[in-house]
């Protein structure tokens, strides 16, 4: 046991002395929380609108002021002709445009049909559609008022965002971010650390020592377990302090599930390192095999419903998907094992299977 303690200490020294990697481990989660809080958003707001009004008159001006008053739009240009619209859109200066027919009020007064053309920049499909719909709604409201001098038919939706009453988008990403950070530390770093020992040949020295193989694994992996755990706690604390992300459920359950996920990630890291002796290959393998799925296929940023069937199927075996589910459930919804038992079981199964597999492959590698 003393030998194991010595190995643990050496690992800790390694980590502490590699200043640059250390800075990255500590700074990354902190920075990620900030970035996700302020940058990863999909709200459509302050839409830059261009107006094409060949013959401004009281009606067109009235409609134009409705746009300004709607709160969603920002008029960035008023043009007499539609020709320069292309350039505006191509430069990204305008996201949408509203073009009035010429002699608008006159035709309207004489009972002739008039047209308003609403253009949305559909490069980003959602934005395009939403901009159009917002604009159309503004025009429609005005038209209804004109025609009936009443408000027309209105269906008033009350929008409730369950589990996120403050509507802060930051609340939504913390669980996913935890998975992300844990994957980096537990899978990526473990894989690299183990292969580095192989590459530099110090693994042989370890093997020649009185340490048993399982002790070597435990010794090398435990510090990352601790660091991972600390990171998760750090992310949660930061999210709560800076963004007031809720934690409605049981902290113990959350930490337990976190531990499960760490074990799964660690095993994956060990498995990857068992297959290669090159640090570069290990890193690539860890990136592609663990980080990419965590970012893309866990529902962390992109909704799983929107993906093709194949990818949705694959997501079932991505551990992060289950952890994100659990974490979101515990933090945002305050639910417990009653709802999360199946996800927990899956994580447990993955952890056990992977731990066994990684230990075995590690042994095999050692014996050759």
């Amino acid at each position, binding site marked *: 046991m003393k030998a194991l303690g010595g190995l643990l200490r050496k690992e800790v020294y390694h980590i502490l002395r590699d200043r640059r990697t250390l800075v990255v481990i500590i700074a990354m989660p902190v920075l990620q929380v900030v970035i996700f809080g*302020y940058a990863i958003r999909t709200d459509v707001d302050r839409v830059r609108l261009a107006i094409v009004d060949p013959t401004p008159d009281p009606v067109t001006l009235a409609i134009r002021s409705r746009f300004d008053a709607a709160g969603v739009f920002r008029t960035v240009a008023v043009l007499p002709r539609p020709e320069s619209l292309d350039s505006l859109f191509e430069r990204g200066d305008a*996201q949408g445009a509203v073009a009035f027919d010429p002699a608008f009020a006159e035709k309207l007064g004489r009972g002739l049909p008039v047209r308003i053309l609403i*253009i949305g920049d559909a490069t980003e499909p959602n934005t395009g559609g939403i901009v159009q719909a917002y604009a159309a709604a503004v025009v429609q409201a005005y038209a209804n008022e004109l025609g009936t001098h009443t408000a027309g038919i209105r269906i008033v939706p*009350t929008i409730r965002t369950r589990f996120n009453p403050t509507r802060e988008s930051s609340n939504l990403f913390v669980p996913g971010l935890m998975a992300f950070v844990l994957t980096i530390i537990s899978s990526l770093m473990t894989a690299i650390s183990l292969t580095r020992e192989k590459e530099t040949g110090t693994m042989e020295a370890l093997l020649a020592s009185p340490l048993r193989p399982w002790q070597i694994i435990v010794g090398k992996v435990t510090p990352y377990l601790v660091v991972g755990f600390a990171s998760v706690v750090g992310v949660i604390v930061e999210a709560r302090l800076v963004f007031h992300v809720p934690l409605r459920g049981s902290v113990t359950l959350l930490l337990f599930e976190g531990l499960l996920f760490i074990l799964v990630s660690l095993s994956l890291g060990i498995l990857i390192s068992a297959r290669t002796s090159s640090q570069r290959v290990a890193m690539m393998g860890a990136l592609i095999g663990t980080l*990419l799925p965590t970012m893309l296929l866990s529902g962390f940023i992109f909704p799983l419903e929107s993906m093709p069937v194949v*990818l949705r199927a694959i997501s079932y075996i991505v551990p992060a998907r289950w952890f994100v589910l659990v974490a979101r459930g515990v933090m945002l919804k305050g639910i417990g094992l009653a709802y999360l038992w199946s996800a927990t079981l899956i994580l447990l199964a993955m952890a056990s299977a992977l731990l066994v597999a990684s230990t075995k492959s590690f042994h095999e590698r050692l014996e050759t």
Partner: protein
Amino acid sequence: MRRVWFLARAEVLHVVRDRATLAQVLVVPVVQLLVLSNAATFRIVNTPTYVVDFDRSTASRGLITRFQASGRFDVTGAAASPDQANDSLLRGEATMVLTIPRDFERSLVRTGSAPIEIALNAEKGSAAGIVQAYASNIVAAYASELAARTGPVAGAAPRIEVRARNWYNPTLNYKHYMVPGILVALVTLIGTLLTAQNIAREKELGTLEQLNVTPITRGQFIAAKLLPFWVLGIVNLAVGLAVGWLVFGVPMRGSLLLLFAAAAVYLVVALAIGLWISTLVETQQQAMFVTFFIMNVYLLMSGLFTPIDSMAPWVQVVSQLNPVRHFVTIARGVLIKGAGLREIARPLITLAVYGAIMLTLAIRQYTKRIA
């Protein structure tokens, strides 16, 4: 200079003979492009929706039908009670619950207005916000339709006809939006990572020392190092574009020449950043980590995954300093919108300035003699 030529030639040999690097440059990006483009999407479709309809009237059924017919919502369950619906939210099965109260139709007929409730499952992240926007639009459109049907006599009402146009992406294909951005990300990542890793490796192996003892100047050394990777970056972009066009049908409305010219400038920035990183680290592992860390920040704030317009105002300002942002804008502008030189002049000039600054910084930072 001749020295640059000799060293650059050796660099090319290194790359060509290193299977791991070749895979990294040619194979991995293609695979990533294929997977990423399919996964990274905010296309709203098949949104699992629960409906609690207390009214069961023509009007309420009409609304529900509108949702189903929109192609974006999938009414997976009609709950008899709000508890059931709530449960579906707790279990994470439903993204949205639509609740229509008892006197919905009557209210509409009598007063011309009626409430409904839309509950969104915030657990679904950013997608929930978009779903809400679509839901609101459907509701508003339905209301307008009802108004048109039951409104005043046609002759008395002036008609304003609203026509809507989707420019640049009429089929609302999310991949067309994503693929250029992902391409930029991959080209950047590879260019920066390879450069940083390459020089860190020379440090680790000790071969850098032998070069430092020769009269080769910093500028010559850096030129020789960057040149092959710069070419590789362009090749990468070309391969990626080909895949994008063949597999995803990404449009190429603008001048490809312009795009590659912009890429040429952009790559200088990306590689210079990699070079700068290499002067900060001692080992390959550190190079990988630091590159990954910096790239992560850049990519998230580049408007690649989520639109810059949706970001907090201060972040939008900060992102002006992000070269990736500018190239993503250029790529999307040229490919999807068919933008010309005049339209991309601003981001292009910014990139050129960055290139000059980063390169100077990196060269200054690189030292042949340890102080």
